[in-house]
């Protein structure tokens, strides 16, 4: 079976972003960009399915700018067989991205689509669920374990109180949580090999999908700064401050 895995190009998770002076967004000029950490986990899971002989082909897809080819090459170096870039402006909404992915699903007919649960830039946590809605497939979000058995995927999910397991009819959509796996690093020979793997570039127009959205960003501001606190010298002083100054215990 084919597995489709979605990846997003985002600001590297170690970068502390700054808001632009004109409040139009965050400053991404000369900032290190990487594959979204949850997407790395998605790629790893797909590649492991192939290594176990459960997946026949792993296709990495990204919906984003030309530069997202870098992240697709990374996915190829990690073990994906081929890649598709749906090239478009950087600020598509999750719904528009889900529509583009739906068109790719229609074309490729994968049995399983794996996505990260959320991107660390927009923090939306929507795309996988929206893709599931548009395809009419079952969804296993925030997965910490995925087991395939015949035409079913048993997905263990990280929920507020612990873990929940659901059985999904395939084809299905899975979104990854942190503990699903530990992604590998790409080796140099694999990075070299990845350069020769096929990478197809499409546009939303090629796929016949709309990129319109029903919201707009009015402004982006820095969060309210916390006032610098004080250092206390001893546990006794800390307890005194908490009781008599902050009055929280």
């Amino acid at each position: 079976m084919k597995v489709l895995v979605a990846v997003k190009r985002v600001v590297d998770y170690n970068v502390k972003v700054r808001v632009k002076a004109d409040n139009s967004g965050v400053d991404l000029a000369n900032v290190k960009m990487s594959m979204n950490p949850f997407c790395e986990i998605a790629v790893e899971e797909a590649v492991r399915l192939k290594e176990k002989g459960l997946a026949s082909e792993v296709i990495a897809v990204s919906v984003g700018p030309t530069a997202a080819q870098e992240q697709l090459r990374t996915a190829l170096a990690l073990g994906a067989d081929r890649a598709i870039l749906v090239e478009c402006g950087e600020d598509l909404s999750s719904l528009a991205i889900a529509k583009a992915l739906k068109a790719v699903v229609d074309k490729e007919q994968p049995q399983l689509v794996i996505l990260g649960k959320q991107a660390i830039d927009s923090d939306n946590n929507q795309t996988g669920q929206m893709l599931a809605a548009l395809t009419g497939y079952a969804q296993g979000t925030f997965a910490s374990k995925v087991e395939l058995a015949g035409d079913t995927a048993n997905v263990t999910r990280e929920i507020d109180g612990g873990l929940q397991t659901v059985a999904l009819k395939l084809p299905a959509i899975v979104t990854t949580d942190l503990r699903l796996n530990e992604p590998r690093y790409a080796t140099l020979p694999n990075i070299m090999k990845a350069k020769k793997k096929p990478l197809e570039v499409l546009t939303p127009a090629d796929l016949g999908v709309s990129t319109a959205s029903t919201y707009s960003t009015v402004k982006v501001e820095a969060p309210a700064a916390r006032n610098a606190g004080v250092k206390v010298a001893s546990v006794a002083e800390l307890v005194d401050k908490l009781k008599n100054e902050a009055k929280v215990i």
Partner: protein
Amino acid sequence: MAILVIAEHENGALAGATLNTVAAAQKIGGDIHVLVAGQSVDSVAEAAAKVAGVAKVLKADNAAYAHLLPENVAPLVVELASGYSHVLAPATTNGKNYLPRVAALLDVDQISEIIAVEAPDTFKRPIYAGNAIATVKSNAAVKVISVRTTGFDPVAAEGGSATVEAVAAAHDAGLSSFVGEELAKSDRPELAGAKIVVSGGRGMQNGDNFKHLYALADKLGAAVGASRAAVDAGFVPNDMQVGQTGKIVAPQLYIAVGISGAIQHLAGMRDSKVIVAINKDEEAPIFQVADYGLVADLFEAVPELEKLV
């Protein structure tokens, strides 16, 4: 137009997150209806009817809605949504699971995890792990919104007298089924709603050392959390994780023990009223957000703190 709030509930009880979500709906303004979907939810519907400010409760009681499976709940919400200007759900793992499915079926964008209402169509929400706050305006016919519960003080659980109306619609997509659940058992308060949270990081060194935090937490009536580093290291289970991708908390008092203060962690606790940091590294970034910082060996400081509180 009215606002539809989707109730969070567990074990036959209305969850606190519902009260914060109703509070967000009140800020938007309009009649507030609460949808209680699930199986055997009479007691939840009765509790929802008593919540201050709720005008009507819609009860969808059907085996298909047990465990709020999104494949079945989303079509139910979509069927009801056309009569509403806004559909709100708490940004719990349930809400995060079914709500984007609702939005996509309605062909509208979802506004995730709002922390403030500026106008009925304009909301504030954190992006980049809370390092920026975006103000977004929705022109969707039905505005589908998840609510970060820490952003809104809960409404009173009593004082309302809404009517309860049964919804007959049964949507069973037949795509998914519930297999089982492993819920962490704890006598301590839940992380998301606790007044005091004690959290441990990589500095705890191992899972066994969390006993010091449990002892302190029991003395304070606090919940116990952890940083992603402590979860990744296998010290404690993931449901204890506080941070960008774990739980978002905003207690009266947050005590960070052996936590360096990575961006991802700060995203989950920076709105706490008072933050205490105990760390032996005086350069740790956690001290930049702490109201009270104690540079000390946690294995000495925490037992001493437990004795003194």
